[in-house]
């Protein structure tokens, strides 16, 4: 009956083993205290069982030393767990400099993946083993959650925001992908697979088909179709700022504040240009709210990113 019933999940990412280690430590602490408490209860209940109907217990009121001990010791243990948990969490939150970037769009009830080379996938994600992969996620409707148990990795996918998560697979194979934030009727059907491949196979898969060209080139086309290029020109002659080399820079706003140009900023600039006006420009850029889909936004963002003057840091 137990064949095929796993009791422990597969570990297939660099972070997974670190999470498991902390988990085992917690397990040990828990087993120790559970046995201690349960053991004492059973022991006392048997040893001091009431034998005469009118017997009373010894009138002990407490002990300062014990109180200090059982406040202090658990406190120290929890602080160890906190620091440990936080440090592993920091590793999860901080992607390495070199990552393979993939865009993820969640919608009721499917996962859409957009590779930079132009491949698009639904509910299935192909990645090479051994490379750090960064997913830049957003949602078209409600909150979803990207969850791959084998990678011990999970993050909410939030409409209106770009949440980045990263992982580095260590074993080729097919792994469950779940939507872990309740998102409506077919929430339990919003599942898929992450396929981790040997690099060579991955290359073969990549070359298998990218009919539409790279994501940045899709963005370039949109940039022209939406007439962005009438205002944003590389030669600083347009009515809008030059976008070349902009991504990752810090921009000064009319209000005197500064912002770093990231995905969210570009998105906001396109949907709500008036929210943050670049210093030295008029608020004449029209809003494209309702005119572009989340996926087109991603293409535009990728295009703006590709306009980097410097050698690209976040390489594919």
């Amino acid at each position, binding site marked *: 009956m137990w064949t095929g019933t796993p009791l422990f999940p597969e570990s297939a990412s660099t972070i997974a083993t670190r999470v498991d280690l902390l988990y085992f430590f917690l397990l040990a602490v828990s087993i120790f205290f559970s046995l201690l408490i349960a053991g004492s209860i059973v022991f006392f209940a048997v040893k001091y069982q009431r034998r005469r109907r009118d017997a009373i217990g010894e009138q002990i009121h407490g002990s300062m030393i014990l109180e200090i001990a059982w406040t202090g010791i658990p406190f120290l243990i929890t602080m160890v767990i906190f620091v440990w948990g936080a440090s592993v969490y920091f590793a999860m939150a901080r992607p390495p400099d070199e990552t393979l970037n993939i865009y993820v769009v969640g919608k009721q009830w499917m996962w859409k993946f957009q590779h930079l080379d132009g491949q698009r996938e639904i509910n299935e994600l192909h990645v090479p083993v051994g490379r750090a992969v960064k997913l830049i996620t957003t949602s078209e409707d409600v909150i979803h959650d990207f969850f791959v148990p084998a990678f011990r990795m999970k993050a909410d996918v939030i409409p209106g925001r770009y949440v980045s998560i990263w992982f580095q697979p260590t074993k080729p194979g097919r792994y469950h992908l779940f939507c872990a934030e309740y998102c409506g009727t077919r929430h339990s059907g919003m599942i898929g697979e992450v396929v981790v491949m040997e690099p060579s196979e991955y290359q073969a898969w990549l070359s298998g088909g990218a009919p539409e060209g790279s994501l940045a080139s899709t963005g370039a086309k949109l940039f022209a179709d939406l007439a962005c290029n009438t205002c944003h020109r590389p030669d600083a002659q347009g009515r809008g700022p030059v976008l070349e080399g902009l991504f990752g820079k810090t921009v000064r706003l009319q*209000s005197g504040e500064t912002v770093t140009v990231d995905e969210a900023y570009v998105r906001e600039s396109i949907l*709500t*240009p*008036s*929210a943050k006006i670049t210093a030295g420009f008029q*608020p004449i850029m029209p*809003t494209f*709210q309702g005119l572009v889909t989340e996926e087109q936004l991603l293409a535009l963002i990728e295009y703006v990113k590709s306009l980097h003057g410097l050698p690209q840091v976040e390489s594919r």
Partner: protein
Amino acid sequence: MPEAVHHHHPALAHHFDDLAQQKEAATLGMWVFLATEVLFFGGLFLVYSVYRAWYAGAFAVASHELDVTLGTINTAVLITSSLTMALAVHAAQLGQRRLVILFLVATMALGAVFLGIKGVEYYHKFVEHHVPGPSFAFEPHEYARHAQIFFSLYFIMTGLHALHMVIGLGIMTWMLWWAWRGTITAEYYSPIEVSGLYWHFVDIVWIFLFPLLYLIGRHA
């Protein structure tokens, strides 16, 4: 005060020892209730703070649509009603029944004026399509989305405040009846005092709403 006087007082409930205990219980109960109210409105102030920080520009522009003159008048009206309320309690403490009635009526009248002015303001917003929803419209257009959040906050905050005022008027009517009937005496005035606490609290909420909603970025 002698025990016996308390024991025979008709307003003393059976489970209290004396009127003093009953009064303390009532006052504490109202204060605890007001603590609850602080957090109730607090949730709204939190929402306000977040969006005010995010969309300062849009909030300033949207705030310009509110009528500061009416807002200021209303603030003055409400503060005056707090004064009359305090005086009503004072009169009750001294057992001056007619003064109690007079000040309660004044308080209620001022409360009604406040609600009337609020109604006029709501009507303007309605005409200008500043009520959030499908018919919402706002110029300049690029601020429309965030201005909608501002007006959502405006309506829910002032709306709940106005609801509290209406409840307050209800309570005051009841107190008026008690004062009229002669239930309220120098010995037993805690109902008036406790209702007064509520009224002043509602005033305090407005003291914050007024600058936060009406006075943002006036200088621009």
